[in-house]
């Protein structure tokens, strides 16, 4: 599939920096719009998968690639990935009020909320970089951001919220509030934050935004960013950082 020249250039950059090719593949049945499996443990390539039918394919692929770009922009010893041993997951399960749920479900939920901490916090850096460096993707980026904002709003629905324990719902909502505040301002539509503020999430979201402002926008600081968000959200004991290596 022919990508936008800027995306092709990005693929080339990642391949050059990492020394591994990037494969992009369509995968029907995915729940997420796009995912990335970085090459590790000797894998021959990085794999970006996307859900077919998206009109923002260039942006979705670029977004995943910029995460990789940030990783490989760091010296080898500063590259990391998030991992969790069972005792850390247990701590997360307790904090998030998931103890009464089926074990596999509860561990899955902890995995998702920790992933959200990483993708949302670094995601602001990634999207800021795309806004500054890939102008041809602006329209697709805005469309995807609006789509994400709508998806986050749907998660406020009473029928969805009552399925999960309050600490987990609140943690997710606080991060969605940051998303609504930051993107609402950038898009000139502050209305996106109104429901979240009405639910009292502003103060905690402001704490996370302050971290975004304080931590330098430099890939070597991404780990600190994730750590500080996790601390504010009470989940610093639910995971650890492993060194990331291709081999």
């Amino acid at each position: 599939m022919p990508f936008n020249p800027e995306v092709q250039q990005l693929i080339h950059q990642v391949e050059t920096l990492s020394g591994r090719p990037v494969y992009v593949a369509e995968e029907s049945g995915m729940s997420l719009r796009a995912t990335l499996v970085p090459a590790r443990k000797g894998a021959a390539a990085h794999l970006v998968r996307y859900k077919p039918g998206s009109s923002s394919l260039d942006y979705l692929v670029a977004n995943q690639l910029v995460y990789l770009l940030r990783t490989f922009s760091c010296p080898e010893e500063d590259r990391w990935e998030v991992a969790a041993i069972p005792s850390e997951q247990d701590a997360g399960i307790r904090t998030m009020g998931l103890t009464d749920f089926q074990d596999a479900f509860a561990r899955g939920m902890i995995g998702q909320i920790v992933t959200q901490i990483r993708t949302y916090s670094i995601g602001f850096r990634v999207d800021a970089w795309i806004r500054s460096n890939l102008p041809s993707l602006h329209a697709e980026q805005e469309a995807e951001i609006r789509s994400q904002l709508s998806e986050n709003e749907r998660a406020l629905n009473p029928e969805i919220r009552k399925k999960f324990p309050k600490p987990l719902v609140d943690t997710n909502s606080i991060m969605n509030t940051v998303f609504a505040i930051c993107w609402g301002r950038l898009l000139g539509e502050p209305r996106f934050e109104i429901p979240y503020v009405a639910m009292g999430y502003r103060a905690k979201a402001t704490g996370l935004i302050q971290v975004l402002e304080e931590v330098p926008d430099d890939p070597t600081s991404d780990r600190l960013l994730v750590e500080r968000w996790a601390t504010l959200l009470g989940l610093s004991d639910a995971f650890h950082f492993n060194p990331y290596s291709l081999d």
Partner: protein
Amino acid sequence: MSDSVHDIQFPLADFDREQLPQPQRDLQGDAYLQAVQEHLSSQFLGQGGAAEVAVTSDRVIIRWKDHSEAESITQQGTRLVQQGDTEKGIATLRVALQRNSDDAAALFNLGVALSNQNQLAESLELLNRLVQIAPEYPCAWVALGVTQSALHGPLHGLSAFQEAVRRNSMDGFARKNLGAALSGLGRFEEALEHLKAAVVLLPQDAVAWLNLGMNLEQSGNHADAATAYRQVMILDPGGRYSEKAEQGRNRIAQQKFRASGGSLRQDALDHLGEALRLFDRMTPDQIKRLTHEIVMLGAKGLAVENTQVRYQLRTLPGEFTGLQLLCLEYVGLKLIDPSVDLGFDLGAEYEEACRLHRLA
């Protein structure tokens, strides 16, 4: 920005009471639901779209619609006031001012809306601030003068109206209000210049013509006053200004009527007697129909002093002068409802005609 509608829902139990103003935080039941609804509705004002907020016993439902052409919060408030949704419009304009206390359009429109609601002290404060920060804002001085006059009497609005005219002598509203204020102070000659200018600048403004008519009437220029009043009745048919104009025309006609016949007009006395005799032969329904027809015919004025002008009726054969019809109408109304004021005093003649009728 696209035109799109989408709904957002969240549990009412998750609404943070701290978001409400202090006095509303402990509300319960419907009062609480209403406070949440009003709070959220106000938050969405000026956001480039329209939000409908509904609060049920278990959830908050927000229906948001983007507008292709965003309307500012001040424009929304002004539009609401103009559409007659005054309370909501005033609340919206207050929010606009909370966000920007120097918003001249919000100061003006809220000031005028409050003045119209008789909340004069607050209106005065807003309009005084407006003329300080935006003295050239259209109609600012006029609005200030109107509120000052309403609050303290015509003398107090005078300098604001004069300032409005000084800044723009082609401002019809300024000329109209200055003329009215001067007339109200008895300075008829000085006022006339402005009132004449006002009807030139605002030829479709019934009030401008009414002010001119009243000034001319009080100055003794009855012919021109009657013309001005007639113009009011054309511009505001059946309206309250028309009613005032008609009263003015009646006053003029009556003065003329009295001036030409002394204290008791024999012709009126004769016509009233004829009417009493005619109505003796009619049923109450026939009297009502005839009187009603004359009332309708006379709405545009009857030529009471011109016997050359003749009228015909559907309910009574023959041709009649204006004075004959006026006398029929007078007697008819006295028989149907003595409390109705015809606006033309034939009381002395009527009393005498009744006395003679009883003797006969």
